[in-house]
């Protein structure tokens, strides 16, 4: 790495310049941007596959798809959205960009490892894309390599179906393993960064709540992903060598697959949503001009959710045939996760008390997040309650619930963060009115898509159904209309940001929102070294408003 890479004059976007400097960069800000463009690409691919499914489901009975094609589409939608978009999602983009800036460091602990994680992610993405190409005569050589057609097992790859189907499961599962490995390395990098590279004075109780959220996320990323790694490797070994672990015909136990899969796949939902909690915790104080209410509780709640999140996985398996005792045990523990989440929401809303609230686009997304996560959290209570989950398991109620937590939570959090830190990332300002219009479309479209699905779930319609009974038809039509508005909303909002980033002439001030957080103290866009000289931190980041004596600190 030549020394010019680290001089302190020009901003990181143009200094050093040239494609090669981007391809071989170890600057956490550039790697964050590269991740952003890659994951948004997969966000649109998976989003379009969702719209195709919704068009098919608008009317009962086969319209223009066949059952097999529908099954491939929902697997594609699930696997791409989760492994390629939302798991890297906020940690890899905003996390990469902001963690060093917010703790006053020059870069992450292992910059080269950070670049390696990105390229491992790209390799995994390429394998996944090839594995998803339908078997076409012109590419018949792929079939001999084992690419025998796109996976049709759902993103969960449940044994024994994933062991029997002729699709290219080993390749798709290997792609997920490689993406998991990239996620582990990113998590590891962030844990060491947050522990070792904090600026002088930046003690743990002065860290921004986004850093606490990113730390809790990194812990889960590092410690939960290996278990699904070995599970996916075993699926490959099972298919290629018949080692008799998950295959019932050879004495294996498919429920063991479910245990090992969900041991990762429940904590992964906290990987998705904890950074979004962090972002909302950063935005609401800034636009309420008020300190974050109960800062300590919000931070400890993040860690509590991360840790308790490891002990609750079998609430996905209440009806899978597990023993009644374990079902009862996991149901009770699952309620342990609900309480810290509620505490967080209470604290956000209390922050706005007696504030001076301005309705910028990030604030609208943050307030929208509070509503969406109230619905997500409360519908989670239905599914945690044992007797009620028996009815709701694997129905559209579950589909609506996890879309409220993932899309309503993590994606809305990402959108809020992208708008809030847009001036910091690009040094320019996005169009505020267009941002608000985008928010309205996303918010309205999202609710119109998934409120009807709650009703479908109550009516007892199972999920992953290509064809359904006529009585479910009206709600599906509503949901399809909503999904198109939702899709258009995201396109509009992201195009607005993209347009501003590329063509806007409006230079953004270093700190347009007057935030007290450390990353706003350096230039926008920041210089390659982040800070001209290492900042000395003397107080917390939420000291908004006039100190009032006699108030509990």
């Amino acid at each position, binding site marked *: 790495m030549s020394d010019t890479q680290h001089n302190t004059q020009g901003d990181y976007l143009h200094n050093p310049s040239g494609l090669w400097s981007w391809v071989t960069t170890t600057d956490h800000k550039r790697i964050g941007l590269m991740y952003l463009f890659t994951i948004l690409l997969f966000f649109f691919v998976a989003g379009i596959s969702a719209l195709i499914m919704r068009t098919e489901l608008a009317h009962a009975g086969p319209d223009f798809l066949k059952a097999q094609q529908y099954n491939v589409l929902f697997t594609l939608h699930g696997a791409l959205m989760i492994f390629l978009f939302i798991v890297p999602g906020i940690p890899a983009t905003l996390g990469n960009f902001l963690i060093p800036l917010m703790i006053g460091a020059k870069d992450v602990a292992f910059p080269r490892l950070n670049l390696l994680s990105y390229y491992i992610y790209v390799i995994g993405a390429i394998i996944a894309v090839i594995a998803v190409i339908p078997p076409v005569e012109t590419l018949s050589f792929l079939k001999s390599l084992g690419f025998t057609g796109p996976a049709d097992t759902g993103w969960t790859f449940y044994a024994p179906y994933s062991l029997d*189907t002729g699709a290219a499961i080993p390749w798709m599962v290997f792609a997920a393993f490689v993406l998991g490995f990239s996620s582990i390395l990113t998590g590891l990098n962030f844990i060491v960064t947050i522990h070792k590279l904090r600026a002088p004075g930046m003690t743990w109780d002065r860290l921004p709540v986004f850093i606490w959220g990113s730390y809790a996320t990194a812990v889960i990323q590092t410690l939960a992903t290996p278990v699904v790694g070995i599970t996916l490797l075993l699926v490959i070994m099972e298919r290629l060598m018949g080692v008799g672990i998950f295959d019932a015909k050879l004495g294996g136990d498919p429920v063991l697959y479910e245990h090992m899969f969900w041991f990762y796949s429940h904590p992964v939902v906290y990987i998705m949503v904890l950074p979004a909690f962090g972002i909302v915790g950063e935005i609401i104080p800034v636009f309420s001009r*008020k300190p974050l209410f109960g800062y300590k509780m919000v931070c400890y709640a993040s860690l509590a959710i991360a840790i308790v999140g490891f002990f609750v996985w079998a609430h996905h398996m209440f*009806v899978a045939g597990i023993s009644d005792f374990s079902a009862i045990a996991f149901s009770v523990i699952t309620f342990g996760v609900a309480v810290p989440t509620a505490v967080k929401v209470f604290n956000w809303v209390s922050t706005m*008390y007696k504030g*001076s609230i301005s309705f910028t686009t990030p604030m609208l997304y943050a307030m929208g997040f*509070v509503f969406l996560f109230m619905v997500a959290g409360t519908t989670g*209570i239905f599914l945690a309650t044992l*007797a*009620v989950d028996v009815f709701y398991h694997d129905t559209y109620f579950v589909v609506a619930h996890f879309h409220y937590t993932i899309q309503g939570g993590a994606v809305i959090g990402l959108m809020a963060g992208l708008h809030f830190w847009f001036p910091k990332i690009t040094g320019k300002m996005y169009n505020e009115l267009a941002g608000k219009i985008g928010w309205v479309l996303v918010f309205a479209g999202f609710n119109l898509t998934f409120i009807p699905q709650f009703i479908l779930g109550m009516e007892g319609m199972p999920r992953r159904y290509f064809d359904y009974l006529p009585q479910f038809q009206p709600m599906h039509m509503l949901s399809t209309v909503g999904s198109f508005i939702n899709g258009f909303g995201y396109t509009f909002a992201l195009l607005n940001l993209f347009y501003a980033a590329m063509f806007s002439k409006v230079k953004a001030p270093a700190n347009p929102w007057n935030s007290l957080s450390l990353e706003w103290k350096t230039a926008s866009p920041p210089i390659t070294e982040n800070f001209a000289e290492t900042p000395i931190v003397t107080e917390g980041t939420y000291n908004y408003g006039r100190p009032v004596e006699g*108030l509990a600190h």
Partner: protein
Amino acid sequence: MFNFMPEQASEIASNIDWLNSLILWLSVFFTVAIVGAMVYFAVRYRRRDGVDHETPRIEGSNALEAVWTIVPTVICVFIAYYGVAFYAQMREEKANALEINVWAQKWKWDFEYASGKKTTAEFYVPVNRPVKLIMKSRDVLHSFFLPAMRVKRDVLPSAYNALYFTPIKTGVYQTFCTEYCGMEHSGMLATLHVVSQAEYDRWVNDRSEEIALSRVTPAERGEKLYNQKGCNACHKLDGSSAIAPSFVKLFGRNEQLADGTSVTVDENYLQESILHPNAKIVKGYPPNLMPAFEGQVSDDEIQALEAFIKSLTTAKQEQAAAAPADPAALAGMSPADRGKKLYNEKVCVTCHSLDGSRIVGPSFKGVYGRKQKITTGQEIVADDAYIKESILNSAAKVVEGYPPAMPAYQGQLSDAEVSDIIEFLKTVK
């Protein structure tokens, strides 16, 4: 007002619905309260005319934190308790439960009763008597879901799983498979009939269907299937083998395969060729012509077909097709209906689908009046004349991209029957 749950048809259902609406109302209350507070704060404390007003530096309040940690915990404990209590009721092993074996298989449900009665896709239970379903899968994971009874349980290939419910209302209830199991996952349905005890006893002991089936020798049953499933369209009994090998003296014969190897025709070869025809094609016959019958024929139907093929040691004259239905009934039907009856009887169904999918021949969906290009490159319109000619002398004008596999029906269909078929084709949109 918010209740969309299906009817309460089992003993546990009322408890579940009570708990469900309790959580629903708590959720609505807290969501409205918190989001309402947020909106109120947002409006009440909004920044006026672009200037931030003074705000107090309130950093937290331990009292409030305690309140909104303890209150949700108490509510959670309360809900969790009822969730566990009703689950325990739901999983209770009752003494005089009616036990039924349930077998899940890729895309159908089989039911076996203690009395030996076997049914598929529908089962009967007496009202007000506990039922215990003992379920296992023959291939992948499935899940037995009875929305009206509020019960569900996965069906594993590795172990038996039990599902308990006690129906309290007679009626017909829908059953779903809720664990993704492949292509026809959405079609793997069953219906539960809850009937009075008397009617149940009559139904369980009514074995007429099985007796009729058992009196027929497997070979006879095989012959019936041979016609019903459309094998007769290509596999002839008079020894001729234009498109497909004739069944006469087929069993035990050594066949040269397309890939050069040879195989003796035994039960395994026949079973494989019925389920996956393209696996071992005999030399000289066109591949991917015969549709795969996997999922459409059960194991015992395959055995019956094999018994029938074994019985064909001498060439037989073409049997008369199924006995013609009495003319009176036929007259009453509309031409299109008669055409549809012929479509099934003359096994056009085996090669021509109605839903647009391609099996062997062109699909009949929207065929009437469609412009087609035939193998000679000539452009034709599928009008009455073309269809009539294609039925009687099918090899005359074959549509491009399709094999000339259709047998000629010259002499097997009267003109009236042909025009009925054409009427039927007009209705297939």
